[in-house]
Structure formats: C-alpha cells, structure tokens
C-alpha cells in the first residue's frame, strides 16, 4: 500500500512533463532526425549519397551564398558589438537624464514586430525614400542603393541587434563597482588603461556571449534577406526557403538545414568554451 503510493508520487512529475516532452519529440527530435536521414538520400532512388552536400559545397553559386551569409553575419556581429559596447559604456559612465532616455529607448525596439521594422526601414532607405527626399531638399540627388545590397542587410541587422547587444553588455558593465574605477583613476590610470585592465577583463565573457547570440540569429535569418536582399548572392535562409517551397527538393533542403545547424553550432561552441573558462583573464 505504502509502496504503491510512493511509486505514484515518483511518477507524478513525469506525467506532468510528458505533454511538453512529446511536443519536443514531435517537432524537434523527429524532424531533425528525418532531415539528417533525407540529406543523405538520393531524391529519386532513396539510396545513400553525399551528393546533396556536395552540391552546396562545390557549386560555385552556393559556395558564394555560404560565403556571403558568413560575411553578412560576421560583419553584423562585429559592428553591433562595437557600437553596442560604445553605447553601453556611454550609458554606464554618464548617469544623466539623456543617458537614461537612451536606455528607455533601447528597450522598446525589442517589442516591435520584425516585419514592421523591416518595412519601416525599407521606406526610409529605398531609392526615392525618405533619405533621398531629405537630400533633395538640400538640392542633392542621392540614392542610398541600400536595397538588394549587403550594406542594407547589415544596417537592418544592426537595427535589430544593437539594442540587444547594448542591454546585455550594460548588464555586465553595471557589475563593475564605481569604487574600483575611481581607485584606479586615483593612482593615475589613463582611460585606455582603465578599459584594458578593468573594463574588458570583467566584460569579455558577455561580449563573446552577445556575439554568439547575434551570430546565430543572423546566420539563419530569413525575413530581412527575403525582403531586402538581392537574388544573387542570397543568404542561406532564403536559399533554403526557395529550395523547399519552389524547387520542392526536400533532400537538398534537408542537407542545407543540416549545414545551417552546423554553422549555428559554431556559436554554441563559443558559448560553451567561454562559460567553461573560469576567469583566466583576471
């Protein structure tokens, strides 16, 4: 009697997690296993083949697409980290009404639907859009040529990622005590020394983590490149969508998803390495 009651109690948590876990099995585990399987199959004979991967890794256009995706993502990571870091430093070390306003203004964009942001940005930067019209007011013929070019994609990505990077870095900058900065200043440390010896060592982890997140969300980007990107070269997210929706080549689509997963796992590796290193810098 008592034993069966104990058993029932032990089972209860498993019953509670079962529905959610089944959903994960159905919508993550099963699709991913199937994708990996399909990616190694020929589309007509279903025999084992590595041709689907070969296609993406040898075809000139596809190689160019992979390179382009990495270029846009890495440029986005570097620029949003640099600008986010500068903005976070500014907010941390200038405590006044204006810097507080900047913090408040960083939060809101996170809640703006992505498509609304892309649409609004396009209206401003398209040729003949707001920027062109403002230039014309000053008598200058100006076309930003931002749409269908890497610079447009990167600027849009910065819109999405600077606030995120700033808030994440600001959190770690806030943990630096004013006292330690002041005492370093008292013994004559210059601004660069402060940055190198106090600020960077205590924030570098967060910098890498923010970078990993930004990289991951941009390697697999779809909406921005679909609307703002060119037809050649294309970001991998768009290539994948076309492969799946227009060419209906599921084996190649599966191979490309696996390639995307692998590229994304690069940032997971960075994340894990950074978290494992225990304050070696200090």
């Amino acid at each position, binding site marked *: 009697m008592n034993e069966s009651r104990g058993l029932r109690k*032990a089972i209860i*948590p498993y*019953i*509670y*997690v079962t*529905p*959610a*876990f089944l*959903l*994960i099995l159905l*919508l*993550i585990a099963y*699709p*991913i296993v*199937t*994708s990996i399987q399909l990616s190694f199959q020929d589309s007509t004979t279903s025999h084992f083949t590595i041709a689907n991967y070969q296609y993406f890794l040898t075809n000139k256009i596809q190689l160019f697409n992979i390179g382009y995706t990495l270029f846009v993502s890495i440029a986005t990571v570097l620029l949003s980290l640099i600008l986010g870091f500068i*903005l976070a430093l500014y907010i941390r070390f200038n405590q*006044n009404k*204006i*810097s507080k306003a*900047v913090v408040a*203004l*960083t*939060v*809101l964009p996170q*809640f703006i*639907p*992505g*498509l*609304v*942001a*892309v*649409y*609004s940005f*396009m*209206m401003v930067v398209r040729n003949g859009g*707001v920027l062109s*019209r*403002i230039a014309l*007011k000053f008598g200058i013929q100006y076309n930003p040529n931002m749409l269908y070019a890497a610079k447009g994609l990167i600027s849009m990505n910065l*819109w999405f990622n*600077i606030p995120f990077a700033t*808030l994440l870095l600001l959190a770690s900058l806030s943990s630096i005590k004013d006292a330690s900065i002041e005492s370093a200043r008292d013994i004559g440390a210059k601004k660069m020394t402060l940055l190198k010896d106090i600020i960077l060592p205590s924030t570098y982890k967060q910098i890498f983590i923010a970078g990993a997140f930004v990289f991951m969300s941009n*390697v*697999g980007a*779809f*909406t921005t490149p*679909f*609307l703002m990107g060119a037809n050649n070269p294309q970001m991998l997210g768009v290539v*994948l*969508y076309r492969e*799946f*929706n227009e060419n209906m080549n599921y084996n190649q*689509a*599966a191979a490309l*998803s696996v390639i*995307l*997963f692998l590229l*994304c796992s690069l940032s*997971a590796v960075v994340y894990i390495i950074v978290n494992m290193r225990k304050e070696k810098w200090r």
Partner: protein
Amino acid sequence: MSRRKFILNFSILFIFTFFMYGPLLNTIMLAFATQYQAPHIIPSAFGFTWWKNVFSQGDLLQAFFNSFLIAILATIVSMIICLPAAYAIARYEFKGRSWFLFSFLLSNAFPKIGLYTAIGIIFYKLQLMGTLTGVVLINVLNTMIFMIWIPIGAFQNVYKQQEEAARDVGAGPIRTFFKITFPSALPAIIVAAMYTFLGALDESQGTLLVGFPQIKTMATSMYGIILDQSPMVGAIFAILLIVPAILILWICYKFLGKKSILQQLFVK
C-alpha cells in the same frame, strides 16, 4: 554639464533616436497619408482613404481575424501543455529534471528557418501542411520558452509553508493548487501568456512556411504587401501589428515594473 559634454550627449541621443525611431515614426505618419509623392517628405494630404481600402479587402480582413485566432489558440494550447511541465520542474526533484528543462529550451538553439523546413517535411507526411493545427503547433513551439521559463520562476516563489498549511487544514492537493499555488503564480502566468500571444501574433516565418497559402495571417500578409501594395497599406498593417505589442508592454509594465520586463528580454 559642460557645454561640450551636453553637445556630445545630445548628438548621441539624436543619432540613436533617428536611426532606431525615425523609420517607425515615418511609418506611423504614412498610415494616415492619402498622398505621398516624391519629393515630399511629409505627405501632401492626410485622411482615412487607405484605411477604408484595407478594410474593404476581404483577404486582408481574413488575415486580421486569423492572426488573433491563431494567437489565442496558441496561447491556450501552450498553457495546457507547458504549465504542468513548468510546475513539475519547479516543484519536484526527479531524475532527468535538468535534461527535461534543457529539451524545452532547445527550440531556441537552432536556426529557425532550418527547423521550420525540417518540420515542414514532417508536416507533409502527417498532412498538417496548410492547416490551422499545423500553424498553431509551430506557434506553440516557438513561444514555449516563455510559458516554461517565466512560470518556473513563479512556481518556485510560492511559499511551501502556505501550501502545507492548506493541506494541514484538510484541503486536497487539487484544491490546494487552485486556491493557493495558482493564484500566487497568476501574475507571472499572465505575463507569460501575453508574451506567448504577442510572439504568435508577430510570428511570420514558420506560418509562411507551414501555413501558406491556405492560412494567411497579418504577419504573413506583410510579405506580399511590402512587395506589391501601396506604401500606405503596409503602414496600416504595421500599426495593426504594433498596437497590441505596445498595449501588452504597457500592461506588463503596470503588473511587474520595468525590471522584470528587462529580464524577460534575455529569454528571447
């Protein structure tokens, strides 16, 4: 503040605001324009003509309706599936607990478009392509992180002594849950529900991949509108998508204050 410093502060604020908010403000202005020809920066005529145009397009109205239906369904299903799991993880010590938690957060570790294509291949097999069920499932998966993560924290903060006191005076486990545990965690659950609702309302990639063209939402209609309708139609849809977001942000702010909103941001 010295003059130089003031100018520096002000120019940072100006550049940042112009870059982040200029486009949005421009969109809000365009939504109420009737004439927007080059070279005018500010539309030469304002009015509601385009609003009438949008509300007379049947498929756009349908998209509006679909968006809210899917968001409501996704929120309800998500609560039914995720809340018990969150409760178990918050309140029970059991083997594999951290692995279950890890698996629930897994969907955010993959590039979304890759995962959606993989799911799409399965949905073809299961004949869920282009169905409401399929779209709702995608949205539940997408927002799972809110409905697991936020309630776990809330359930952990309910005082055990209070529950034990209720049990001591003779309340059963179910009654204790609904009289003590659930009400204490309710504010956080409401916030989680709002995030889920908002996430589902904004979701476009998964719905486009799995539901299009049978199921159109406001968000997926935006793709077509941006590519081939007048700028004003896009601006009106943008407003229809922003307003719920702002409302929900404001309500969360009232409920929990600024700090908790900032914390939730990193869950994304």
